[in-house]
């Protein structure tokens, strides 16, 4: 039984900061209120926010201890409610490390220990010195990953480099150019831009900037006037329209530039390595993340492809795993991307390495021939709804929009049905869907949880059925719903999937 260890003393500061983050907004209100009124009445209130947090942080530092027993890690914490947690080494799936800028400056690291099952990390240790992380990795994984453990022992304890040299097979490395492309294609941070935009509009800054340029408030009513002008041949102010369009395009460009910068910072030096049966991911410029994904925990592999992806010949690959999504306050989809951007011709090799399934060259089963008739109903309904709403503004001028709505519905339905398909291989079920934004999902038979055969009255009337395949992933992207399957094929698929799933053991 080894000696007990504590967290790094800096953990007091970090815990304090984390708690403070929760109180920023109310604190801001108090401060703003204090600006208006007089006196120092607000100071006691600030004390109320700050003192308990400081006390909590100090307490936690003094009461949190851990030690390495023969076969398990023991963590003791708590003052009033004492807790002793035993985590057997054999149950620890991976030890992940996150370092943001402050962590890196101070040479400490935020450690998350994940075991099989469950949606959150089993234990979060914030913060540990870097040497403690290396020690933990070597002690826990000794005997399981001899290569990594050997490299870990050789690693210099003072190295600020997160990853000891691992004997592994590099699967993917994204240089800055790829990341810029990724940021351009995806639209990261769009929500932030939209929020900032809304804020500026609210505060009236937008009008203040633009009105001196144009001479009148613009933006509102432009689209309406344009449509009216086209239909009724009234005079159109081309200048105003050009200006609005230019502003809009400028905004889009700004969003893209922001997204590109975001991608470069967030995913800097993205590396995916295969070590034994694990995939190790490292990325980040300011916040450095080092994460391990045991391959057998991969439930569903999803390949996403938007129009821009296709133009540049790339795809984005995401996996959903069972248990253990890194929980951060800014929970973001970055954490699930196993390949934020990948050239399409390397997709097969990548998928084979990750889950042993080849995607291209599969024989896709198309949907039922009458699927188009059913699909278009939804589209027509949406088009009718949109035209009805437009009619409130445009009155009788809405009639020219109706044929374009119908055309949109027909094209949309036809393309959607054309790109639907499912396939079975010896080891997995595949499903592709989507027209502009396409998605191909792959689930190995061993990862199937339940299989359900559904038939709505519309399905039964047209001789179709749907098959739902459920997996242990935690998100929506981890289940497969296959619609518009001819009834006999659906039954056969249901029976086959159930049999295959029953024959294979499910291992976390």
């Amino acid at each position, binding site marked *: 039984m080894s000696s007990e260890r504590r967290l790094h003393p800096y953990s007091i500061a970090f815990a304090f900061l984390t708690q403070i983050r929760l109180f920023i907004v109310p604190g801001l209100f108090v401060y703003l209120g204090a600006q208006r009124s007089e006196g120092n009445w607000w100071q006691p209130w600030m004390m109320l926010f700050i003192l308990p947090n400081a006390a909590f942080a100090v307490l936690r530092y003094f009461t949190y201890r851990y030690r390495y027993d023969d076969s398990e890690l023991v963590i003791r914490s708590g003052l009033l409610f004492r807790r002793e947690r035993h985590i057997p080494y054999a149950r620890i799936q991976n030890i992940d490390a996150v370092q943001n800028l402050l962590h890196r400056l101070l040479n400490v690291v935020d450690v998350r220990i994940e075991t*099989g099952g469950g949606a959150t990390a089993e234990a979060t240790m914030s913060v540990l010195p870097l040497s403690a992380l290396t020690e933990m990795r070597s002690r826990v994984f000794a005997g399981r990953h001899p290569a990594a453990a050997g490299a870990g022992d050789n690693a210099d304890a003072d190295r600020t480099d997160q990853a000891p040299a691992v004997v592994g097979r590099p699967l993917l490395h994204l240089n800055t150019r790829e990341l810029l492309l990724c940021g351009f294609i995806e639209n990261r941070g769009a929500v932030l831009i939209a929020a900032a935009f809304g804020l500026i509009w609210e505060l009236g800054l937008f009008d203040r900037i633009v009105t001196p340029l144009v001479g009148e408030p613009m933006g509102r009513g432009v689209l309406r006037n344009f449509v009216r002008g086209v239909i009724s041949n009234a005079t159109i102010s081309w200048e105003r329209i050009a200006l609005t369009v230019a502003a809009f395009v400028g905004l889009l460009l700004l969003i893209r530039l922001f997204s590109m910068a975001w991608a470069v910072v967030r995913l800097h030096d993205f590396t995916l390595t295969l070590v034994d049966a694990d995939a190790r991911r490292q990325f980040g410029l300011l916040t450095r993340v080092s994460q391990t994904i045991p391959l057998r925990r991969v439930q569903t592999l999803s390949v996403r492809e938007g129009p821009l992806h296709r133009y540049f010949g790339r795809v984005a690959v995401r996996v959903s795993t069972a248990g253990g999504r890194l929980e951060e306050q800014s929970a973001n989809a970055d954490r699930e991307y196993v390949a934020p951007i990948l050239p399409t011709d390397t997709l097969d090799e990548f998928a084979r390495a990750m889950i042993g399934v080849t995607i291209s060259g599969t024989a896709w089963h198309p949907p039922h021939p009458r699927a188009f008739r059913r699909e278009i109903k939804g589209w027509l309904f949406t088009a009718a709804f949109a035209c009805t709403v437009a009619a409130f503004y445009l009155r009788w001028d809405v009639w020219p929009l109706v044929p374009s709505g119908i055309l949109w519905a027909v094209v949309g339905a036809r393309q959607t049905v054309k790109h639907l398909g499912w396939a079975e291989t010896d080891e997995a079920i595949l499903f592709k869907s989507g027209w502009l934004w396409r998605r191909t999902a792959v689930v190995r038979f061993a990862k199937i949880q*339940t299989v359900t055969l*559904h038939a709505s009255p519309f399905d039964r009337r047209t001789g179709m059925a749907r098959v739902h395949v459920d997996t242990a992933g935690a998100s929506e992207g981890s289940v497969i719903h296959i619609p518009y399957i001819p009834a006999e094929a659906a039954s056969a698929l249901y029976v086959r999937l159930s049999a295959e799933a029953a024959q294979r053991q499910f291992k976390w």
Partner: protein
Amino acid sequence: MIAGMLRHVMLDPRYVALQRELGWYWTAGLSIALLAGSAVVLLPRRWYLWLPLWLLATALLAWWSWRWAEIEYRHMSYEVDEDRIEIRSGVVWRSVQNVPRSRVQHTDVSQGPLERKHGLGRLVIFTAGTHHSRVELPGLAHDTALEIRDRLLPRQTADVV
């Protein structure tokens, strides 16, 4: 829907009585609400018009819940064998659910007050899935539910982690 469903077992017949009793409570509640609503909104004016209508509505509700219990019963069945448990349900929106035995995480047998009165129980199967993490099989005799639960207990002793 599928050929293999010939081996399915129907639920306990007392389930119909249970659903009918539940239906009575629903009908009573709904019709009282309807009466109160009409009385308040329409006031005693023209009571000769909406009172018969309300009576008709209540009668229809009662008859419908009576019939529906039996129709629903006929469309529910299940099968438990060594590989999996399969549950068929649904009258208008039909479905057949399959849970392989190895995917059963744990099971629950629960009894509400009405179920206790009729001697029935409900088997709830928990899986690791996202949408179907809970699969319910109501309308089983309490002893049968316990027996199925015991049969579904995992046989392997090795830790699957």
